[in-house]
């Protein structure tokens, strides 16, 4: 090869897009034959650009990532097309050639940093091993380089962080380590697979900012995979919307947001909660207190009586306060939002209210004082029902839907025995499920349908308060909107109050009359919905609100 042709090659490579996927299709072999996962995908990432791939669960967006990384399960069948990294066909590469490319020319940032880091290896080694593998550095050089890489991600004391194990670092710190590893060999392409989904609101915001900063510094090309169209609009140049393995829409992110053409994209954008559009029930005309929380505290891992006897000074220090001195009241018929990050104590409060958790302090239900979990009686339990985050875990997989819903009906004698069947059908209809579902098992239902069953079960007892603990968090955006609307409708019909626990600030501002903000087990803020943006909000509330993108189509268009 002459010098001239080599130069030409270099120039040609420079002009080629970082990644081009051409007419690519993928299926999986299953017991029921071939199941198509991706159909005729065309996707191009120009050098230095970030392209977003948006889709809900099952859309095939993760399959796309595995295809590009050439890391497919044995039952994957590629039925045609091309995947080219800077013009180089990846489909023809042997596994060994791919191992040389992975981590060096293209790398990946995963969804959950707590599972993608090896728990028994120091963070430093997990960065350094990539440098030793791909750049042939010695151990000492690699560790020094790892420190530099980590410093670039904004970790204040990188040297110290290198010595830690994953469990000794926070979620945000771990994700920075994963990002430092991905950027370590200065790759041409990085795939981000929902890199902020497993993180808290404020941390997610910082990671997004970090991503934008590193992108500017390194001019890397990136494929950003997410289910959240609004979030993607803040980091990508172009976006492709994936639905059931087919790209239904593509374009500049601002244009797609402002003028979606595909019906699915319209539905997706419509489902994104808009905090300025209130969809909840009317606030109760005159506020009447239903339940009052009076100095509620929950002390996890509290020292035993014997420990207290020997070390009385430890009584406060040992263990962890899940909630401390929480006071507020829930009014009849209202929807009270409780927001906070993971570990803020919001689920602890849910468990206290539902009578699932020992607590200190008092609950007052319409003037009747309850002094502890053991003092909670049957009548209280009927009046206060709970819906959990994961319907998979809260519905017994061996019971039919009818049996599951019949349980509270029988337990509290809501209707006479002979009318139970009819009532189950009514309840299913109330949550907009066909009555035949009574004979099905939970695994035969989709995630959204299962959550409807869990909601029907809660309302079966005809409660006065329903606690919804992150009921929409495990659901796709479009399903999430439908479940939220359903709750509002049920509230309207039954007049029950609702404590809606969530980390989604946009969603809660659509639904709640009043909002409580929790942080480190304490109630830091409590306000009426219209006052969310008022000046006297707690700094923490302000930080949370600022961290969340509010994406009305108009605003997104202005960004673009």
């Amino acid at each position, binding site marked *: 090869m002459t010098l001239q042709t080599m130069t030409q090659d270099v120039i040609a490579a420079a002009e080629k897009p970082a990644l081009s996927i051409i007419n690519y299709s993928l299926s999986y072999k299953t017991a029921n034959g071939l199941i198509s996962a991706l159909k005729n995908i065309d996707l191009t990432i120009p050098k230095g650009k970030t392209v977003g791939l948006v889709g809900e669960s099952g859309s095939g967006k993760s399959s796309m990532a595995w295809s590009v990384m050439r890391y497919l399960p044995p039952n994957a069948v590629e039925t045609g097309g091309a995947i080219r990294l800077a013009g180089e066909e990846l489909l023809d590469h042997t596994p060994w050639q791919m191992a040389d490319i992975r*981590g060096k020319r293209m790398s990946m940032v995963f969804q959950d940093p707590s599972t993608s880091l090896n728990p028994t290896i120091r963070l430093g080694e997990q960065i350094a091993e990539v440098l030793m593998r791909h750049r042939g550095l010695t151990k000492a050089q690699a560790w020094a380089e790892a420190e530099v890489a980590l410093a670039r991600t904004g970790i204040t004391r990188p040297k110290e962080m290198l010595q830690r194990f994953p469990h000794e670092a926070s979620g945000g710190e771990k994700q920075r380590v994963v990002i430092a590893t991905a950027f370590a060999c200065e790759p041409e392409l990085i795939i981000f697979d929902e890199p902020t989904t497993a993180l808290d609101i404020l941390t997610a915001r910082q990671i997004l900012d970090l991503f934008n900063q590193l992108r500017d510094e390194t001019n890397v090309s990136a494929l950003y995979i997410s289910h959240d169209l609004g979030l993607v609009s803040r980091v990508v140049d172009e976006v492709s919307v994936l639905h059931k393995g087919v790209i239904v829409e593509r374009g500049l992110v601002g244009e797609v947001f402002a003028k979606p053409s595909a019906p699915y994209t319209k539905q997706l954008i419509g489902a994104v909660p808009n905090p300025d559009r209130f969809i909840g029930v009317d606030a109760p005309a005159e506020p009447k207190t239903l339940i009052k929380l009076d100095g509620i505290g929950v002390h996890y891992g509290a020292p035993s009586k014997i420990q207290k006897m020997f070390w009385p000074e430890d009584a406060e220090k040992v263990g962890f306060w899940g909630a401390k001195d929480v006071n507020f009241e829930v009014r009849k018929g209202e929807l009270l939002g409780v927001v906070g990050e993971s570990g803020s104590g919001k689920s602890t409060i849910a468990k206290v209210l539902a009578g699932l958790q020992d607590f200190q302090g008092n609950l007052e239900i319409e003037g009747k004082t309850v002094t502890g979990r053991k003092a909670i009686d049957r009548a209280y339990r009927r009046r206060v029902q709970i819906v959990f985050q994961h319907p998979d875990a809260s519905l017994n997989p061996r019971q039919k839907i009818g049996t599951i819903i019949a349980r509270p009906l029988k337990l509290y004698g809501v209707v006479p025995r002979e009318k139970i069947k009819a009532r189950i059908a009514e309840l299913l209809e109330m949550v907009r499920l066909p009555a035949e579902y009574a004979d099905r098992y939970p695994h035969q239902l989709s995630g959204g349908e299962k959550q409807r069953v869990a909601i029907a079960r809660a309302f079966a007892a005809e409660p006065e308060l329903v606690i919804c603990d992150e009921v929409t968090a495990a659901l796709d955006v479009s399903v999430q909107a439908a479940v939220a609307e359903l709750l509002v409708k049920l509230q309207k019909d039954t007049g029950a109050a609702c404590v809606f626990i969530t980390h989604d600030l946009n969603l809660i501002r659509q639904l709640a009359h009043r909002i409580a903000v929790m942080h480190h087990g304490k109630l830091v803020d409590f306000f009426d919905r219209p006052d969310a943006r008022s000046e006297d909000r707690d700094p923490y509330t302000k930080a949370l609100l600022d961290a969340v993108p509010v994406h009305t189509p108009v605003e997104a268009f202005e960004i673009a």
Partner: protein
Amino acid sequence: MTRAYLLRRLLAVLLVLAIVTFAVFAITTMLPGNAAIMILGEYATPEAVAALEKQLHLDQPWYAQYLSWVAGILHGDFGTSLRLSLPVTQVVGEAFVNSAMLGATALVAVTITAIPLGALAALKRGTGMDLGLGLFSYLGTALPEFVTATLLLVFFAAPQHGLFPAGGFVAPWEDLAGFGAHVVLPAATLGLVLMAHISRQVRSEMSEVLSSDYIRAARLKGLTEKRVIRRHALPNSLAPAIAVISLDIGYLLGGIIVVEEIFAWPGLGRLLIYALENRDLPVIQAVTLLLAAVYALSNLLSDIVIALLDPRVRYA
């Protein structure tokens, strides 16, 4: 590993041993029949029986007997063997060394074969090799020691070729090769069952680790398969295997009794059977207590090793 963690585990072991001394004592004194008559024979004169009872402190209340026994143990004095007329410490000590050599040989041999075999089965999951190893393992677990021992004897100690001696013992410091020849069959008998157990454990643990997110991440970093397996997968699969190995020491202690009897290996197992047949109370007590102590200490050891392998446990 924190000092508090170690201290807590050590205290737990001491507590277990204290309870064991009581249990051992209670069981041995509750054995039916009069030890003195058993020893002297049924034609002994009442005077002789009374004299022996006095010598054995059998005439004293049980708590006094217990306390004097425990006091003796704390001074390293387990009494005198009734049959052999030798200090119990000497009799049991010799047998213990012999048993330990057999047990350690079996354990080391098993560990260095079972862990790679289990890892191999996990890596070749679903292939013929995995199935073969699985079948072999189930056979090993299913067959009791006396069957495996007999099979081994038939195939490897038959008089026609006499590959290995059928039984007996040679001390390694006298004749290392002789010791080696004698130890192969009993160690193999003990090892076969353990091997199945440990390799299955490593296999299931390794399969789980191999399907974890961090192994996927390691592969997607482009690391060589060798490094992914040796540095990322194997160490994380070993912690539970080590827990199993230490529990297997308990099994080994039981297995050793049968195997030593079959192969005429002069260890704790044979001594225990001899002492039981002859109602040699001090020996029975000392051997049982020793077995319990080995078991408790091996568990402690496994906790420490697991803590070293998995940094998350260190703070538990």
